[in-house]
């Protein structure tokens, strides 16, 4: 059974050049983000009303948040709304940031709560737990990396929202278990449990995840 989502979906974003994707260097910069010390300094300036610092922080986070939220909601307009809601809070509450955690954890904690509300308001049906889904999403034939990524996107949609967010925070954004627990405001063991169940479901839906593929970058 092949349930491949339509390429591109309904994301009003522009495509990159013909080579596709960003360079590994750019991606590494994106994943690493600006340094925590720099972000703390930006937060201090934002608390003092510095819009330039606010703009810098916004641009530092926009891409990864857009990707995270678009994958989560499948709609860029919703993702953009959540991003701006999140940074509205950053602008108004920067003075409340005490530095107990990294700015990225604090900001993604806000984004997590905003995204959860937006997601539940607009797509309750996607929260259905498909424990009983018997069929894998993929075919028997080896899939290309692109196809597998599409299938993975569809498989993620079958996960409960909390599990899906935990997966994305771990694999996509590279957060530690403790950071995810802070972002999701739950115990560390809850994070591990959510990922445990998510991993089991994803492997059932995508058995090819466990198969070695040519050109795999990881």
């Amino acid at each position: 059974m092949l349930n491949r989502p339509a390429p591109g979906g309904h994301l009003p974003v522009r495509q990159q050049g013909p080579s596709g994707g960003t360079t590994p260097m750019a991606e590494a910069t994106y994943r690493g983000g600006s340094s925590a010390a720099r972000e703390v300094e930006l937060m201090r300036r934002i608390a003092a009303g510095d819009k330039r610092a606010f703009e810098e922080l916004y641009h530092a986070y926009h891409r990864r948040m857009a990707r995270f939220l678009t994958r989560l909601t499948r709609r860029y307009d919703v993702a953009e709304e959540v991003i701006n809601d999140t940074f509205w809070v950053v602008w108004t509450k920067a003075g409340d940031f005490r530095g107990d955690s990294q700015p990225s954890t604090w900001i993604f904690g806000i984004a997590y709560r905003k995204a959860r509300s937006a997601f539940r308001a607009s797509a309750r049906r996607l929260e259905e737990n498909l424990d009983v889904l018997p069929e894998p999403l993929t075919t028997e034939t080896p899939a290309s990396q692109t196809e597998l990524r599409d299938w993975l996107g569809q498989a993620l949609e079958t996960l409960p929202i909390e599990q899906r967010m935990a997966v994305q925070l771990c694999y996509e954004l590279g957060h530690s278990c403790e950071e995810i627990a802070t972002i999701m405001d739950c115990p560390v063991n809850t994070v591990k449990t959510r990922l445990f169940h998510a991993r089991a479901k994803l492997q059932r839906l995508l058995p090819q995840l466990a198969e070695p593929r040519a050109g795999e970058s990881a």
Partner: protein
Amino acid sequence: MTRTPLAHEESWLQLPWLANGRLTLEERAEVEAHVRGCPECARELATQRSLQGLLSAPDTVSYAAAPSFRKLLQRIDAAPAAAADSAAPKPRHRLAPHAWRPPGLAWAATFVLTVSLGLMVATTYRWSQPAYRVTTTAAAPASAVLHVAFERSLPVGEVGEVLQRAGARVVEGEGGSGVFGVVPATANGPVDRAQLAALAARLHRDPRVRWIEPLAGDAPAARDP
């Protein structure tokens, strides 16, 4: 490597962070040591790395941040001042101790204080007065007007006859109290005490006169018990 259930379960749970490189050095060493001797965990680690690679792969799309940021700035700039006061970081909105403030609140407080003080003074004055009210004064009527009351059943015509016979005329109506203020009918100006005493004597002779207000210094002249 010896596989213990606890070590296996713990390692299994830690594999996502071994794949994304976020374990501490100590945790990583422990998990990697277990994975080397556990084919099941080794396969799972491969799956985890595959999953991590797929989800963190370079984007094929880009997201334009500038238009979104402009929208957010417009929202911030359009925010009502009241919302900004309550939501913006405190250091930017904290007023200096000597800063000028609108006087509306001070005016309102002053008004309330003034009204309260006025009410308090009025209440204090009222409480300082006797509980009864004096409706007549002693001196003035005694020297200018003689107050007379007639039998209650006396018709108005007979009241006039009594007054005419005694040589008196009404200068103050009874006003529902049954008491008339009278002076000698011949008086054109201020009436002295002797004229009033003479008039009282004439009225007192008529049995239909029930009560005559005593003049100052006189004995009570009323017929009422």
